[in-house]
């Protein structure tokens, strides 16, 4: 069982996390688990020894998060990529393995981006079959994250939420609720997100994400950039989720670009922690 607040492990802060674990006495926030980007560990290198140290010496649990499984894509899975992931799963025994409910490659090429799946019956059948294939291959449950969507498809057979619930029902996969992604989607469509969060199948959520976005004034659009603090709205959503269900799934702050100092990240974690306690 993961404790309420984890941390996202990013290379620039790796040594500081290890130092904090070694001291373990001052007031530094040290989580019991880390979310680790799988793509950072596809190549050999000294960072593997550090991760081993975190897991074995400091007894931290890890959650593996990837971006390239391409669950909704067309064409074959990249055999080299999924085989590398499987090796990492065998080596580090992550508590959860997560990726995104999206497509990132056509049969023609990879985009290294998270592209939305149209909520249609055809897409659902297709995605169900691929998620099952991956779960069979990895011999474990996949946890899939709701993504930010900037475009709306003309053909829709159901809501995004129904699509997601059906996928869970038919594959047995679990969910990673990204509060900020859902908020951005609603904000960009000038819609209220409350009904979405109220109906979200929390029983199937393994953990949650929070992050900060950027406003693109030219496009009049909020961009999911992971480059700032989570906003008050998203913290309030988190607070409400915990208020309604005190044993809600744990949360982790995602911050990928314009990464602040370790000290600033500590303050951000304190802010979220206060929110969980309140």
């Amino acid at each position, binding site marked *: 069982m993961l404790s309420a607040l984890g941390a996202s492990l990013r290379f620039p802060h790796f040594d500081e996390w290890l130092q904090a674990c070694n001291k373990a006495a001052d007031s530094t926030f040290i989580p019991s688990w880390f979310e680790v980007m799988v793509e950072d560990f596809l190549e050999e290198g000294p960072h593997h020894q550090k991760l081993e140290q975190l897991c074995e010496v400091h007894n931290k649990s890890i959650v593996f998060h990837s971006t*390239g499984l391409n669950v909704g894509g*067309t064409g074959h899975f990249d055999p080299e990529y999924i085989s590398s992931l499987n090796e990492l799963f065998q080596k580090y025994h992550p508590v959860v393995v997560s990726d995104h409910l999206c497509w990132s490659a056509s049969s023609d090429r990879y985009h*290294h*981006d998270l592209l939305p799946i149209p909520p249609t019956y055809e897409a659902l059948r297709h995605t169900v079959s691929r998620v099952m294939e991956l779960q069979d291959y990895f011999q474990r449950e996949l946890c899939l994250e709701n993504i930010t969507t900037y475009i*709306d*498809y*003309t*053909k829709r057979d159901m809501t995004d939420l129904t699509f997601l619930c059906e996928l869970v029902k038919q594959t047995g996969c679990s969910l990673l609720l990204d509060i900020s992604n859902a908020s951005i989607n609603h904000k960009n469509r000038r819609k209220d997100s409350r009904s979405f969060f109220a109906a979200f199948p929390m029983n199937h959520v393994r953990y949650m994400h929070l992050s900060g976005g950027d406003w693109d004034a030219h*496009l009049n659009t909020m961009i999911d950039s992971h480059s700032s603090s989570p906003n008050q709205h998203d913290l309030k959503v988190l607070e409400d989720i915990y208020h309604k269900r005190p044993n809600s799934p744990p949360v982790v702050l995602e911050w990928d670009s314009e990464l602040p100092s370790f000290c600033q990240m500590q303050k951000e974690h304190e802010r979220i922690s206060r929110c969980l306690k309140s």
Partner: protein
Amino acid sequence: MPQIITSQQPQNKDSHGTKPVSYEDTIAKISYAISRIDASGEKLLQRIINEHSLKRFVIYRRNYLGTLLKVLQEDYPTVLAYIGFTNFRYLTKEFIANNKVKSANIFTVSKHFITHLHSSYTIHHSAELSGLASIDYLWSHPCHPVKFIKVSHGIISLYENIAFLNNNKPDNVSPDDLKNKGLRACMTSLESQIKKIDYSRFESIEVILEGENKYLRRC
């Protein structure tokens, strides 16, 4: 027993009387439109994406170039310093136009950039660029199985000088090129080094990894 949605009656026509676009075709069209970088592929999407959200499609096109550019900039700091950001961006666009990315691992994609530089005709000094790129890749991926490469004689000295000027950090590169940094004297020195490159002879360089430290060594 939960009710499972499996399929609906097949829809042969949509409300406009036209045959609906299949899922595979939808993905193929979007993929193509993203890879065009400019907006020329977006006309294919009119039946797929709502008009009001089509203006946001640029975000995906921008991401496609931006993600690759970021990785290539990190992996090839000396090439970037040598040709400047404008040319580097142009080469990245050219790379995207001529190469379909076939790997889920973006770092695998990066190594194909060397081959592209070798065959590119748009950059005047493409011969030394692929040599510089090979050393950059060796440096950026010290744990890659290849730890030893051969380059044309003179490339290593050129690499050392550019890396020294650039301090080997992509962040230090100005938006244009080394000339804009007021380093004309250095450029003159580099130009004389370029003239000394002997493409009929080769020299070797290896990357040494000791714990967290790495360095390049002529061998």
